[in-house]
């Protein structure tokens, strides 16, 4: 089952193993400049609020009710990153507008290894965007569906789905025991690194994710192999992106304030981050590598320049790794 608590989705697979669980939340962040320069990891600025679609069913479009799942409020051009947590290995597929964010292929529930279309947690602590080339992603940036910016529209020519789609599969029971509980009769604590890119706690309705600025981030190769994942026991969730202004009308709750700009953040002397892990990174997706970024699309459409998109020069970049994983962006 998938449980929503404290704006975090927790996927539990008790039929597979009592420890089989992982959590996903959506972090507010700076939109890095979309200027083809490479940027380090921006901070997390708190979790996006997450609501059940069923709690506001009569105020939402029919398609949202059909999809089920949850929704979060986003401003136009706002960025997010997806934060993974949990000790039990799980394979996670992420799509935006039903375009796989790792492979660029159309959505299917099953995992694929050629090319690999999923991330493995806890090895993968987060995902900030579309896998455009080895070691680089283009940041997830919310744009209204129907204006041609989103990855979905650029690849399929249609503004049909929007939102984010997630499916999680746990590691098979026997594979887990073999790797992590050999000869163990009494349950023992498995000391695996926990990742936390931690933060302060806390128009058109439908939005999709478009490729923004370029950021250094690896998506790691699955070191366990496809057969390690229990694909009979997956759970999936459709995460709709609601325009922040309409979010207030739907829920009566105020959406979070607009996040700081990258420029403001740097002027406040706050840190950016770089994450190091020696695991092998996946190649980028050719399909995703050909996408036009939001800023380039704005110019292409003759709409001038994307606001708040001046280059910035991060002065403080904190190095984080498996043993040192806080990506704290209090602002």
């Amino acid at each position, binding site marked *: 089952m998938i449980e929503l608590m404290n704006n975090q989705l927790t996927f539990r697979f008790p039929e597979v193993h009592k420890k089989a669980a992982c959590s996903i939340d959506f972090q507010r962040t700076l939109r890095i400049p979309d200027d083809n320069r490479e940027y380090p990891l921006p901070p997390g600025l708190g979790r996006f609020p997450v609501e059940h679609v069923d709690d506001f069913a009569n105020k939402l479009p029919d398609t949202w009710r059909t999809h089920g799942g*949850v929704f979060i409020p986003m401003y136009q051009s706002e960025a997010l990153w997806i934060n993974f947590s949990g000790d039990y290995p799980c394979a996670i597929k992420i799509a935006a507008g039903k375009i796989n964010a790792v492979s660029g292929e159309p959505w299917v529930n099953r995992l694929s290894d050629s090319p690999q279309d999923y991330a493995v947690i806890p090895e993968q602590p987060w995902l900030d965007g579309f896998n455009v080339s080895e070691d680089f992603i283009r940041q997830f940036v919310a744009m209204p569906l129907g204006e041609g910016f989103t990855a979905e529209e650029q690849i399929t020519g249609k503004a049909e789905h929007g939102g984010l789609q997630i499916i999680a599969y746990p590691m098979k029971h026997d594979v887990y025991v073999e790797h992590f509980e050999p000869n163990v009769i009494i349950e023992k604590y498995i000391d695996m690194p926990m990742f936390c890119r931690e933060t302060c706690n806390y128009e058109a309705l439908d939005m999709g994710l478009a490729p923004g600025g370029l950021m250094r981030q690896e998506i790691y190769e699955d070191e366990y192999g496809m057969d390690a994942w229990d694909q009979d026991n997956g759970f999936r969730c459709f995460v709709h992106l609601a325009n922040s202004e309409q979010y207030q009308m739907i829920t009566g709750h105020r959406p979070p304030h607009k996040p700081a700009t990258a420029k403001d953040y740097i002027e406040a002397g706050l840190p950016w981050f770089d994450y190091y892990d020696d695991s092998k990174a996946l190649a980028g997706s050719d399909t995703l590598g050909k996408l036009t970024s939001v800023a380039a699309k704005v110019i292409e459409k003759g709409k001038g320049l994307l606001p708040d998109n001046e280059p910035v020069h991060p002065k403080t970049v904190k190095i984080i790794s498996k043993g040192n994983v806080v990506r704290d962006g209090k602002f």
Partner: protein
Amino acid sequence: MTFGEYIREHREALKSVDRRFSVRQVAQRIGVEPAYLSKIERGDVAPPSEAKIRALAEELGQDPDVLLAMAGKVSKDLQEIIRKRPQLFADLIRQLKSAPDHALLRIARDVRDGDW
């Protein structure tokens, strides 16, 4: 109210606005003899199989779990769930027997996956 009485009451209510809900026609649609359905409604025979109860629920617009419970049956999928962790689910159900509905709903709440 017995299972048979419940079925008859709901079938008759539908029949009063739509003649397709006669004993004969409903029996035909769920694949049993009309005489057998009449006996079920009178309580002369035990409730039918899970498959037939599900077909009746579908036909009469009723919740299959409710009809199965009235018939004293537990659906196969629930049996399967309990069989995997019998002690846990037995304890859970016993402990929750007097919990109010809202508390039960809170426990059962998960993020619903739809069609996409």
